[in-house]
């Protein structure tokens, strides 16, 4: 019994931590259908802000998305018009 507890406690502790850090409710979300409509109209620029493994491990990359480093915003922000609608995805 002691062994089972020793095994389960860290598993649950990490799962709790993960669940807590799993989402950010303050970010507004766009459905893929809406985004597709915007992309078809050409009214949006999609920015892929994923870095490191977040980007390299992923199988899914949106066609036509611009890879941008959040830390280098000064370098790339001038490439977009001020009234341009931007959709950023980071995970």
């Amino acid at each position: 019994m002691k062994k089972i507890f020793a095994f389960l406690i860290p598993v649950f502790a990490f799962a709790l931590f993960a669940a807590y850090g799993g989402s950010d409710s303050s970010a507004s979300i766009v459905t893929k259908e809406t985004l597709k409509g915007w992309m078809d109209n050409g009214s949006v620029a999609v920015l892929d802000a994923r870095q490191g493994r977040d980007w390299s491990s992923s199988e899914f990359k949106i066609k036509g998305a611009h890879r941008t480093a959040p830390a280098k915003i000064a370098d790339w922000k001038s490439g977009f018009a001020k009234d341009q609608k931007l959709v950023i995805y980071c995970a």
Partner: protein
Amino acid sequence: MTTEKPSSTLMIKCIAPALGLGLLVSPDTLVRLGDFTGRTGWPGWILLAGAMVVFFFLAAAGTGQETHDNPGIWQYVPLTVKLGAAIFLSTGILVSAGFVFNEIFLYWFPNFGFAFLLLGLVLGIQLMKIQTGLNIQALAVLLTLACVLPLVIGGMVVQGPVSPALPEQFPGFPVLFFPLMLWIGFDLAGLAPAHADTPNSEGNNRSNALGLTIAVSGILFLAWAVVSALHVPLDKLSGSTIPHLRAARSIMGDAGRYLMGGAVIFGTFSAVNALFLACRISGTTMARNGALPKTLGKPVVIPLVLALCIGLMMALGMAGSERLENWIQAVFILWLMTYAAIPARRFKRKKSPIPALLAIWIAAGSVFLLFSGESPLLTISYLIIILGVSLAPGLIFTLASKQGAPKKHNQPHN
């Protein structure tokens, strides 16, 4: 699950190679192998076979026993590279496994949630006996192989859309050394035989376990390189961050994706569990020999510290930083350099040409690989930091003993 010491046969044929194969079946190895295949085409298969021979010679030269008979200021280097790999590589591959689980199996499950769950699972296993961890390691490696083998067989049986060819561009001289990176971690197989029921034959057990690890991984690498080149154009393999998934998809479609997804998840578990076990075994051995404080020799301390470091790094978003790759590269190159030291020591004793050639080849490979990666200066600076951390305790011991305090050799220190 039994916690008795297994027979030496079971140890050599299954458990010890599973520890050695832990890192070798990790998803990062598959990425390196895919990239290498894309850069070299079919001549790469010859280089792979050549590297396999180099590692057979290394095993014969005594790799895998450095933690037991390597006193002096260098004795902490093998442990430090394992700790470094356990922290940096695990952070990277756990997050990668989280993405694979999220994208292939369960889209609504948070990727970081899965990464933490996997880390928690490894930690939970590490809080049990070492032998339990070794048995689970063998199971995890078998499951990884069970996911990859149908893809290899399918890839051989099904006619691929491409014929393996030569790459359009000459890949450059450093490519000769790329396969050396694939076998880093094979020496972990040498740590397990001490747990067998026949300690007197530990040396033979170790050599056999290392040999079996190299043979199994070599056949697997060659087979995967061949099927990848048969099913994906070389230019799509080289530079891809997911060449293994591309190849799996091309071989079996969605079923291939699921199989490779399973291989990535079980392979990640195998690599992280193997690194935790290796650090634990090395740490307890060194603490028993008085080379580390006794506190670190307690079975749960090293796994807890490692899990805490990895958890913090994941929570702080280190996996999203390009610098993580430089840390991993630095650790791996330092690990490779430790392999060069073993034949060099043997050459010093026996003046035989083979160990000298081995040492020169691996040392040259380390240097070329160091400079052929991304941001080599950053990698060099990280390598120096890791080396500094490795040498500091050894220097303290050496200075303490020179000041006439020989007893401190057998005393724990802080």
